[in-house]
């Protein structure tokens, strides 16, 4: 039997990695998969039924973000694909205007490695903006980095490790004076959690499984005036910009997950804000053991801290044995002895970067989850060598 059975129940505190599927969302998925299973590209009735449903889903996503007039929605397989499509799609399509791109040092690997590939294989030049000790980009640095040949700026709305909110509004306002520089933002960790000026962003990435939907479905919201060089060539779906048979069930359940999330966002935020306060107090009262890396008063969904003199891997393992799931160095590459490049960019301290722990919450967490976490964390940290 797996180790999971060792504890009586699971306390899941890794919601920035993925969230529990909402049963209502799953119900829609099942209904569509069973009863609207046409290929939305077929021209017979079953196909058209699927396609009409798909378009309803698309319209709902756009109108929930209030961008129906200005933007289009391309459905993808998830945020990694959306980020690749946005960045490479712009880079390839507009490279005749210039080959300079700007991003930050704290982006998700699906953004960072896409830029690396553009540098290494396609001869683009990339400026990586630094962050301050709070993990935030300074908009003035962006203003300085802009050049005549800049074609794209990609800056995430909320960092996936620290939850730090980036100054998206200010960045968008700077870029308003540079109409030929497109602005992409990965808002995966921000949607439904913090306020985002959707209409001011040219390209927006987010995904279903971080908002209680299913894995395998995401989208790229894109200003209508922009064209992208497609990465998937094929049957011309999604306005010729992302070929491949549409996952109608995934898309419909995604649209529903988004509606539920946005309808409840204030309530959930309030719930989580109250929830984490004891944890924040505990961390702040034990500064000899912990350093708080996040700003929970700004974004309560992620509490990130470093262990000053213990190994995070050992603590995460210990918590896991107690049935408490938290994350250390970001899930995308936590295998192997690596450190958090995000915390390193903020602190320049290898020890803190190596021994980072991320607690990420969702509406489903309870007061008791946090009480248990504090109790076990305290025991483990004080108990181990």
């Amino acid at each position: 039997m797996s180790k999971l059975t060792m504890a009586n129940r699971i306390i899941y505190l890794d919601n920035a990695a993925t969230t529990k599927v909402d049963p209502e969302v799953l119900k829609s998925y099942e209904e569509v998969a069973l009863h609207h299973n046409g290929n939305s590209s077929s021209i017979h009735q079953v196909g058209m039924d699927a396609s009409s449903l798909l378009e309803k889903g698309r319209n709902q996503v756009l109108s929930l973000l209030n961008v129906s007039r200005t933007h289009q929605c391309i459905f993808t397989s998830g945020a990694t694909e959306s980020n690749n499509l946005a960045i490479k799609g712009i880079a390839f399509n507009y490279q005749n205007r210039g080959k300079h791109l700007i991003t930050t040092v704290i982006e998700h690997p699906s953004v960072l490695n896409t830029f690396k590939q553009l540098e290494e294989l396609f001869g683009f030049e990339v400026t990586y903006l630094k962050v301050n000790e709070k993990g935030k980009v300074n908009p003035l640095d962006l203003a300085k980095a802009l050049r005549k040949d800049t074609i794209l700026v990609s800056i995430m709305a909320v960092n996936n490790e620290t939850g730090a909110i980036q100054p998206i509004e200010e960045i968008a306002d700077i870029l308003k004076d540079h109409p030929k520089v497109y602005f992409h933002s990965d808002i995966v960790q921000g949607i439904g959690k913090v306020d985002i000026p959707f209409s001011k962003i040219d390209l927006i990435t987010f995904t279903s499984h971080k908002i209680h939907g299913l894995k395998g479905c995401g989208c790229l919201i894109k200003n209508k005036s922009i064209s992208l060089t497609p990465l998937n060539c094929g049957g011309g779906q999604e306005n010729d910009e992302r070929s491949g048979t549409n996952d109608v069930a995934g898309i419909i359940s995604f649209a529903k997950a988004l509606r539920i999330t946005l309808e409840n966002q204030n309530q959930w935020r309030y719930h989580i804000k109250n929830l984490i306060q004891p944890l924040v107090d505990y961390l702040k009262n034990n500064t000899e053991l912990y350093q708080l890396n996040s700003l929970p008063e700004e974004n309560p969904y992620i509490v990130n801290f470093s262990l000053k003199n213990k190994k995070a891997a050992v603590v995460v393992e210990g918590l896991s044995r107690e049935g408490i799931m938290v994350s250390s160095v970001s899930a995308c590459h936590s295998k192997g002895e690596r450190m958090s490049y995000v915390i390193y960019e903020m602190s320049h301290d290898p020890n803190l970067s190596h021994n980072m722990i991320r607690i990420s919450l969702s509406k489903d967490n309870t007061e008791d989850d946090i009480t248990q976490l504090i109790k076990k964390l305290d025991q483990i940290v004080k108990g181990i060598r």
Partner: protein
Amino acid sequence: MKYDHIMVRFGELSTKGKNKNDFINTLFKNIIRALKEFKNLKYEKRYDHIYIILNDENPDDVLLRLQDVSGIYALSLVYKCENDLNQIKQASLELIKQEEGKTFKVKCKRGNKRFPIISDEITRHVAGNILSNTSLTVDVHNPDITLSIEVRDEGTYIFTKTILGAGGYPLGVGGKAMMMISGGIDSPVASYLMMKRGVTIECIHFASPPYTSEAVIYKLNDLLHILNKYQPRIRLHIVPFTNLQLEIYKHADESYAITIMRRMMFRLATILAKRRNCPVVASGESLGQVASQTVQSMNVINEVTNIPIIRPCVVMDKTDIIKIAKRIGTYEISIRPYEDCCTIFAPKNPKTMPRLDECKAIEEKFDYQSLISEAINNVEVKIIEEDNQDELL
């Protein structure tokens, strides 16, 4: 300081004499229906304005929705205070501070003559207060900011910005039309223009399956869904046109086929219009756009009916029609590439100057009357309504 009301001003209603009350009541109902998603709003109906009390709803979202309601001339976000000079002065100052600009002008109307201070003096008091507390200067000819004050029985309304509404008449006051709709760019625009003049529409569509695709019906559904913004419930009559169309092509010279086809369509539309109590038929025709839309063609085609045919787009340029289509959001659906019954079997050289006697001679060759009855008896009706939230979504 937050604006707490929206002031709705009527357009041409004021010319309507005794009917004015009916018009206002209809508009009032239409506004409430259009704003039903905003649960906290409250409404006040008065003889010359309608007031919407915001109760913390987002004013921009409410205004955007109101701009689709016909019969509204203009909209202003207003602040309401008591009929008290000090309050008026204070509120005016606060409101003007929120505006951008260097120069201003104050306008005042005193509908409530029991208020002891005349308009001109109110203006002086308010402007004086603004001058001594801000760096703004007065410019009565080209001010950056115009502050308007209206003193009424129930209170004083202050506002700085006015946006134009859709104009026209409230939907429902102008009777009903049978609208011929193909799924192209023009007919949805014509429908919108009819609705804007207060006319409710029912739609008639000619389908020629299997030569035309079922996709056209989906397309119409999507188009009418967009028009649901203006008319929440639209009845669509789908007329089976295949048999009639095949007969026409059997008996008519190719160059006359379109003309005869259009004559049949107008016959069918007339019958349905009378049956559904529509005093007029409307279409999206625009002069000269295609062979059947020249003045000579219109004359020959129109000959089959004595019901008025309204063509709202008749003298508009295609580019202007497209502009409206894009604004109301029908354009992107209209350009989906499906054939309709006018484009299948389209002749290479249709007559632009058809002759009536020729048409009559062709129509004598076959029994179109019974085909028309057959079509009318097999009309399929669909109701297209504003969506309730789809359970799946």
